[in-house]
Each structure stands twice: as structure tokens, then as C-alpha cells.
């Protein structure tokens, strides 16, 4: 396809030329599906839109032509602004609008009656659009769907929901063409498989990746500490870098670390450099303020988290600093791409390890980045909780035929191997609850009449629509200044529950004092008279990827480590002298006494979540063997357990079948499993997230979803929701899949080293935060003792 002359004139007037990959996209404008892999700043979005702009240039198309879907509302708004420029300057007869959760009801209504040529939206808003009975009318004439940042969507259930919505659209508009835009990923074929209308192929185009980034580890005068994640030692060196660059993005892995680092940075910021903070827990207005200051070029640095990962154009960033080990090489590369939007200049990035072990991990990540060795875990089959939601959404749009819907669902790559029996289970769950005890004959949600499935009560459509989406953010509480209305941000409810009046914590870079809880928000004042208690609200906690862990293990096998700073290679040499360095195909276990407790450190290199689960499983087994474990702490590479009796033979603890039993019986009652259940049950529509009634009414009538989990586990253990929960537990917070991977890789080869004091590698573990006590019989005892003491204090002991 050739661009109309007006486009060439416009490009020429700006001194631009069409990039080769943009021309490739034009040439393949008729392809049924097409995936473009391009580095950040490569004119990726324009490449996606050029064919549409060219097709619409003659004004001959009525109604919706192209849907653009992005993971962020802000990105949709940003693209709308960016598209206005060429459209206005070329005088093209094209109407562009966005539609997100923030769009007014009037505008939304008008868009359904009279859609624009190009509609910019999010997966959730699109799913909602497909749920209306008039959807076929609105989407009539739709030619193309552009999925931006598809690599980010593909990692979550939002991507699965989007692809299911696409299968609906494809059924309404058989000629719909699909375009995916992706940053550099390890497995483009997997993304293409997810994008195409299965079993059709999907061609992959690669833009010139540009020069390799210029990445290095930041050398600080002070040595990194043995443990912790706040990287305080690096503050002067980071400030120096900010001074030398125009705009610096300072990425952190968690929101709490970002807050703490920002606080410390300001304390050291003698020259008052304008520095801002941006993360997902901040209030939207606060975030927008920082974003616009950034676009204006008013800020010299922004301390941020993953909320700035996606492709919004934030202006002239010339340096990216990553604080803490990057955990994942792919994410590191994508973050580095945030620097330098000039296409042919190398991006510049610095890694700052926050502790001694992270020095090793940073060097391993640097080597992987230079070798273009990206990581990622293969995605499992399409999640069935999302499919259940899709079936309900389909039912909202009107009666449907189960065979047709099954055929449609199978065109989604992630669901291409879904069996009819699995589909029918999901349909049955939506219709009757899917219980072994058939209790809901009278109140079925879906009814089969004359071969078609209907909503029994059409009013149910409203509840289903209000529950659309797969993002779980229910556990947050807004933080407000006392007497004020405007929220400062949000904290996790679990964090708020630990606070007592007078406690101080950091939010939005300021220290606030907890005053109390008012309805569903946390009230604070600005009286900062105490050092802050760390805000432990999580953000996402990533585990170090399998590939990166393997790289670290390989590095351990070197005779010497010239690539590491002296203090770190000395540390590894000392570990080798005193004990051993862990190996990939064996599990190293070290036992030593410390502070009158028997300590044992298990080096599994399975990532933080799996090491945590391993801690739960191991301590359970240790309790059975009367080793009286008292607690444990987990990092990405090891789990340290302490207890009353020393471990003398660790090998039996790792017996695979016993571990699996532990997983099924005991971990089944674990709080993390219950959280996993709650998430899936909410997505599948068993639990309703947004009910029309106010949340405040009748609090004593509400009860925890944990009760539902326990009841199902006892009376209906094979129920679909429990199957899904167990499947989810292989990944995510429980991450049992990586424990299995570790057991397979090491096949019972356990090296046990017993010493009389902590080893160099284990010593930092003793300083780690986040110790988990074992809640056995001891915890109940503690509760009784506390209660008895309180009774005595109150003079009630004889009551």
C-alpha cells in the first residue's frame, strides 16, 4: 500500500522519512494478523496507525474503522493527543475518540449510537462494549484492531480477556484484521500465537532494534550493605548522575522501596534539584501532576516503579537507573528503552545493586542483556476463570448457542487446546454454580431454551457488567488528610491494619501520622515528628526469573570472578573456602547454630515466592519430625529456617511425594491459597466485586470468602473453582511450579554442610526483613497467654 501524497508532504515538511518497518506495515495492511516487534521510541504506534490513516484519508468510510486497545487509560489519552497532530495538520476527515473508565456517561452513550472512525480503549472497556445487545450494530464495518504494548497484556489475564473479546468481534466482523505492537520480547512467536485468529498464521515484523544500550553497574564509593533493599549507600552517586543528565528515571521494584529512596534522596538533595515520585499507589491527581511536570521538562528525575514501564512519551529521558537487582532481564531491557527516544542513539542505563548478593545478580543481568538473552516463563493454557466471565458477558449480549461459542473460543490461541468438556464445565458453572450438589434448579443463572442459552433474569446483566475485568485491587484503602477530601494515595488494608494511632509512614514522599480509620479511608495528619515506619504496601513483588537464577548459579562455578568488584568476589571466595557455592543440579543445605537457635539455610534458587512456599512446606515437614521450627525467612535464592533442634539429615525433607502431599493437604489451608481463590472466584463471578448497593450497609451480614473456600474444600473438593485455584497456585504467589522445577533439576542430590557459625552466603539472610513465624500450637498458646494477662490486668480473671 502506498501513502497518499498528502502524507509524503507532511513527512517531508517535518524533515521525516517513513521508517522501513512503517513501510512494511503499509505493505502488509491486508494481512489478517500482523505483529510488529520494535524497541521503545521506534515510531511503533504510528506504524500501527499509518495504514488506518491512509485508508480513511478519502473520507469514504462511515462508522467505526479501527479499534485501538492499550493497557493504560493514560496511554489511550496520550495516543489521542499524538494522533491529533497528523490528522489536523493534514486536514484528514477522521474522528478519533477515547473510551475508558474515565469517559462520561453521555459521551459513552453517544459513542455507541454514533461511533468515531478510530476508538481508543482498554481491554475492560472493550469487553463491556461487547456485552451490549447492540454491539453488532456498533462494530459493523470495523476493519482493524490495533493492540498496543501487547507484550505487557500478554503477561496477564487482561490479555486473555482481550483475546476472547476479539474472538467475539471477529464473529461479528469476519474481515477484521489484527495488528499487535510489542516491545522486544524473548518469544515473539508466543505473542503472535496469542494474537492470531487460531489456527491462522501471524506474520512477525521486526523493526531495526537500534544500537545496543549502554548499560553498566554504578560504582559507588561506599560498599553495598549485606542485606536490605533501600540502596541508601548509592544516594550521593545517584544524585551526581542526576546532575550530569537532563532527565533521569529511577526505577524501583516495589513502591515501598521507591518511597523510602525518594525520602532519602530529598534529605541529601542539597542543591534542590526538582525530583518527583510516581507509582501506582499514588492518587491519580498526584500522578497526573508529576506526569505533566515531566512532559514540560520541569523535572530532573523521577523516582518510579513499574507504573512508568509502558510506552507513554515522557519527554527527553537520557538516563535510566535501576535500583535493586532487575529480577528479570526482559523487563530491564524494556525499562532501559525508556531512555533516549531518538531512534538511533543508544539508551543509557545504570544498575545499582542494593546489597552484596544483588551485585552478583546485577552482573549476571548485564551479561544476559549484552548477550540478548531474554527470559520469560512459558504461559499456561487460557485461564478458565476468565472464560467463565466471558461466557457471562456473552450471555448479557443476548441468547447464544453453546456450539458457536465453543468454536469462537477455540480461535483464541490461549484457548485453542480447550476441550469441550472443559468448556462445558465452565458453562455449567455459569448456569448452575457447577456444584456436585445440584441445589439451584430454581435459580439458575442461565437457562437453555430451544437450543439457546439465556440469562434467567435479564436484570442480572447489570451485575455482570459491573464485575467485568480481571484486575484485583480490592484490598486498598484510600489515605486522606484529616478534614481534607483529596486522597494522597492508597495503602494495602493489611498494612493499615498494623497501624496504631501515632504511627508514621511515607506516602507520596511525605511523612504522615496515622490518626485513625474513617469509614473506608485512612485518616492522617502531616505532623511529621517521628522517623517514618516503612510503608510495606507491596506493589508487585517480582521473583527473580528462572533464567537469571541459572545464570547466577553458572557464575558461581567460575574459578575466579574478575567481573565482580573485589569486595564481592572476596565474599564468594570465602564462602567456597568455608563451605561450598551452590550448584544448579544439587541443593546446598547449611546448618549452623546462631543466637542459641539451630539454623538451616536451603539454597533452592527458585525465586522469592517459591522459596517462601518452600519455607512453609519445609517447616511443616520439620514439625512432623519434631525439629520444632520457630520461623523462617525467604529471599530469591534461599530459605533460612530456625528452630529448637538442629537438622541432621535434610535429604528426606525434599522427598517429592511428601512435598506434593504437603502442598495438597496443608498448603490448601494456607492464606495465600485463599487469596488466590478469592481472585479467581471474583473473576469467574462467584463473588461479586461491585454490587449496586452501598458497601456500608449491613456489615455484620458480610462474611469472608475464606469461608467459601473452606466449605468447598470440605464438601466439593473437585469443584471448578478449586481446580482453577490449584492451577493458579503453580504460578504467582504460591509458585509451586518452580519448586517442582527445583526438585526435578536436583533429583534428590542434597549436599549438607554443618558448621559452628553462619557461612558468608547465609549471614546476610540473618539480617533480612520479613521473618515469618510458624503458627503451630505455639501461636494459639501465645494468644491464650496474652488474653489471660489482659484478663488479670483488667481484674476480670475470676469472672
Amino acid at each position: 500500500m502506498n501513502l497518499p501524497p498528502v502524507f509524503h508532504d507532511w513527512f517531508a515538511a517535518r524533515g521525516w522519512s517513513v521508517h522501513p518497518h512503517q513501510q512494511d506495515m503499509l505493505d502488509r495492511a491486508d494481512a489478517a494478523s500482523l505483529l510488529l516487534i520494535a524497541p521503545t521510541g521506534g515510531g511503533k504506534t504510528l506504524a500501527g496507525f499509518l495504514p488506518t490513516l491512509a485508508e480513511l484519508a478519502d473520507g469514504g468510510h462511515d462508522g467505526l474503522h479501527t479499534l485501538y486497545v492499550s493497557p493504560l487509560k493514560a496511554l489511550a489519552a496520550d495516543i489521542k493527543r499524538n494522533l491529533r497532530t497528523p490528522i489536523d495538520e493534514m486536514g484528514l476527515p477522521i474522528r478519533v475518540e477515547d473510551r475508558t473508565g474515565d469517559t462520561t456517561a453521555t459521551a459513552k452513550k453517544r459513542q455507541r449510537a454514533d461511533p468515531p472512525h478510530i476508538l481508543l480503549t482498554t481491554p475492560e472497556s472493550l469487553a463491556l462494549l461487547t456485552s451490549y445487545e447492540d454491539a453488532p450494530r456498533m462494530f459493523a464495518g470495523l476493519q482493524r484492531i490495533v493492540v498496543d504494548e501487547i507484550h505487557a497484556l500478554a503477561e496477564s489475564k487482561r490479555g486473555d480477556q482481550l483475546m476472547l473479546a476479539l474472538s467475539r468481534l471477529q464473529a461479528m466482523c469476519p474481515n477484521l484484521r489484527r495488528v499487535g505492537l510489542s516491545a522486544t520480547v524473548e518469544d515473539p512467536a508466543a505473542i503472535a500465537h496469542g494474537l492470531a485468529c487460531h489456527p491462522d498464521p501471524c506474520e512477525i515484523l521486526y523493526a531495526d532494534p537500534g544500537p545496543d544500550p549502554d548499560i553498566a553497574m554504578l560504582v559507588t564509593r561506599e560498599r553495598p550493605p549485606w542485606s536490605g533493599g533501600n540502596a541508601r549507600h548509592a544516594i550521593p552517586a545517584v544524585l551526581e548522575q542526576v546532575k550530569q543528565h537532563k532527565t533521569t528515571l529511577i526505577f524501583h521494584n516495589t513502591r515501598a522501596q521507591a518511597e523510602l529512596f525518594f525520602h532519602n534522596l530529598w534529605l541529601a538533595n542539597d542543591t534542590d534539584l526538582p525530583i518527583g515520585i510516581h507509582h501506582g499507589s499514588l492518587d491519580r491527581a498526584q500522578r497526573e501532576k508529576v506526569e505533566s511536570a515531566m512532559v514540560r521538562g520541569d523535572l530532573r528525575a523521577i523516582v518510579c516503579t513499574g507504573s512508568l514501564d509502558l510506552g507513554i512519551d515522557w519527554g527527553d529521558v537520557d538516563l535510566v537507573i535501576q535500583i535493586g537487582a532487575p529480577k528479570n532481564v526482559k523487563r530491564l531491557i524494556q525499562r532501559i528503552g525508556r531512555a533516549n527516544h531518538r531512534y538511533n542513539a543508544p539508551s543509557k542505563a545504570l544498575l545499582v545493586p542494593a546489597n552484596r548478593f544483588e551485585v552478583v545478580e546485577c552482573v549476571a543481568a548485564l551479561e544476559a542483556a549484552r548477550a540478548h538473552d531474554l527470559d520469560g516463563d512459558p504461559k499456561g493454557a487460557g485461564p478458565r476463570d476468565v472464560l467463565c466471565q466471558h461466557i457471562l458477558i456473552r450471555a448479557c449480549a443476548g441468547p447464544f448457542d453453546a456450539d458457536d461459542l465453543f468454536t469462537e473460543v477455540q480461535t483464541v490461541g490461549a484457548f485453542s487446546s480447550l476441550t469441550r468438556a472443559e468448556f462445558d464445565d465452565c458453562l455449567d458453572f455459569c448456569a448452575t454454580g457447577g456444584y456436585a450438589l445440584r441445589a439451584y434448579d430454581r435459580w439458575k443463572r442461565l437457562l437453555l431454551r430451544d437450543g439457546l442459552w439465556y440469562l434467567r433474569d435479564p436484570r442480572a446483566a447489570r451485575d455482570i457488567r459491573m464485575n467485568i475485568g480481571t484486575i484485583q485491587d480490592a484490598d486498598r484503602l484510600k489515605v486522606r488528610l484529616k478534614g481534607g477530601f483529596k486522597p494522597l494515595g492508597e495503602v494495602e488494608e493489611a498494612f493499615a491494619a498494623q497501624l496504631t494511632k501515632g504511627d508514621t509512614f511515607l506516602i507520596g514522599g511525605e511523612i504522615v501520622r496515622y490518626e485513625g480509620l474513617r469509614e473506608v479511608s485512612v485518616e492522617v495528619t502531616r505532623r511529621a515528628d517521628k522517623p517514618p515506619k516503612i510503608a510495606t504496601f507491596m506493589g508487585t513483588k517480582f521473583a527473580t526469573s528462572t533464567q537469571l537464577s541459572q545464570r547466577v548459579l553458572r557464575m558461581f562455578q567460575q574459578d575466579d570472578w574478575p567481573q565482580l568488584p573485589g569486595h564481592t568476589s572476596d565474599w564468594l571466595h570465602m564462602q567456597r573456602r568455608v563451605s561450598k557455592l551452590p550448584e544448579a543440579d544439587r541443593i546446598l543445605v547449611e546448618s549452623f547454630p546462631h543466637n542459641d537457635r539451630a539454623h538451616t539455610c536451603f539454597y533452592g534458587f527458585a525465586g522469592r515466592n517459591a522459596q517462601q512456599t518452600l519455607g512453609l512446606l519445609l517447616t511443616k515437614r520439620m514439625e512432623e519430625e519434631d525439629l520444632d521450627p520457630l520461623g523462617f525467612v525467604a529471599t530469591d535464592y534461599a530459605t533460612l529456617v530456625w528452630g529448637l533442634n538442629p537438622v541432621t539429615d535434610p535429604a528426606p525433607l525434599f522427598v517429592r511425594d511428601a512435598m506434593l502431599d504437603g502442598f495438597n493437604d496443608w498448603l490448601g489451608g494456607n492464606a495465600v491459597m485463599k487469596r488466590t481463590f478469592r481472585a479467581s472466584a471474583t473473576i469467574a463471578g462467584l463473588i461479586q466485586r461491585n454490587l449496586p448497593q452501598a458497601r456500608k450497609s449491613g456489615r455484620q451480614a458480610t462474611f469472608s470468602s475464606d469461608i467459601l473456600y473452606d466449605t468447598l474444600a470440605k464438601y466439593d473438593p473437585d469443584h471448578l473453582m478449586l481446580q482453577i485455584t490449584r492451577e493458579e497456585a503453580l504460578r504467582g504467589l504460591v509458585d509451586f511450579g518452580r519448586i517442582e522445577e527445583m526438585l526435578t533439576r536436583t533429583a534428590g542430590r542434597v549436599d549438607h554442610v554443618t558448621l559452628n557459625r553462619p557461612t558468608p552466603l547465609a549471614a546476610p539472610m540473618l539480617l533480612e526483613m520479613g521473618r515469618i513465624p510458624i503458627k503451630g500450637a505455639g501461636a494459639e498458646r501465645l494468644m491464650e497467654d496474652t488474653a489471660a494477662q489482659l484478663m488479670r490486668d483488667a481484674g476480670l480473671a475470676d469472672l
Partner: protein
Amino acid sequence: MNAYTLTFCDTTLRALASGALWWPDQRLLCVSDLHLCKSDRVARRSGQMLPPYETRETLARLAADITACDPTTVICLGDSFDDLLAAETLSAEDAGSLTAMQAGRQWIWIEGNHDPGPVEFGGTHLAAYHCGPLVFRHIATAQPGEVSGHYHPKYAIPGAGSARPCFLFDRRRLILPAFGAYTGGLRATDPVLAALFDRPCAVLTGRRAIAVPVTPSTRPVPPGRLRGSRP
């Protein structure tokens, strides 16, 4: 069976860890707010299909207490059924286990706000039941010596674990926790409950019955609540 023994209006009562109240001198067992057939009412009213096993679970817990105590009198202190319509949906199997429990015992259904009228099952229907110095009624009034339910009290010992359903009592009044499987709770520190008591003591239920004085607190409501029906 784990219990906390308390003296209330000159009677010796045992608050069982299960949430039932046992009065040994009278061989009287009292449970409150069973909310049987709740999942049916929720499905009828909101379309939400909760796991329909709560009636089975609640009756199994009650049967365990009855087997352990062998009472001559059983009082269900109101809201025994989630509503009168739901009572009609009790399965034959569940109705059978209820009948088996009733055999050879005086069984008293106290009327609650959810189940104001008589249900088909055996036993006596009363608005209130007097026995010695105590009076059993669904919703607390100003009368001393009153044993009631309705509020589903729960309490967390500050700094030691999460909230559990609990008994609440002072010199004049005793309120039972909800016994039903699908029941939430109202914090003992909630103004509504706080107004009913003078320096109350709580007995937490669960694995063990744990007594503790109630101290006012400003803790948030924990996450993950489901909305069911009004108590």
C-alpha cells in the same frame, strides 16, 4: 470439649469453643443465628450461587455439640433459617438430621427477625423463653439476665491474631456469636454493640474458647467481605 466457664446472673455457664452456650445445671444447649438455607435465599434475591453446603456444615457442627453434651433442652435463639421461604427448601437429608437431633429433647425455636413465624419442623415456637434467672430472646432489650443473639459479635485481641466470632457479656447481658457457617460478624467495638455493654468481656471461639476483656480500638474492617443479606 473446649469451653470457658463463666458466671452470669448467678448461673454457671460454659461458652463452648464451637460458639454454642451450655448450661450444665439445666442440661440446656443454646445456639444462635444458624441462618440455615442462606445460600438459597442469596440465590433467589441476588442470583449469586454460593456453594450450597452451609446448611449441612452448620447442622454437622450442631450435631457434634449435641452428641458431646446430650442436652435435654435445645434452644435455637432466632434467625435459625435465613427466611421462611428458604426453610421450605431444606433437603430431605438435612431435615432428617434435624429430626434425629430433636428426638427425645425439648426443642425451642425462638423467633428471629429473619424467621418471625413458625416453620414446619418439630419443636416449640416462642418469642422468648424464661428459665430461672435467665431469659432467652433473639434481640437484646433492657431486661437483665438476658441471653440473646442477632448481632453476630466478633473480636480480635489487639496484636494477637485476626477477629473471631465471640460471646460478649457483662453483668446484665450475654450475646451469643452466630453459629451458622455463612455468617459474618460485627466488631465488639462497633458503637452499636458498645452501647449495649458496660466493660464487656469477650470469649473468642474457634479451636479454643479464649476469654479477653474488650478494649476500644480503631482497627479497619478486614478485606474480602462478601455482602449477603441483612441480619
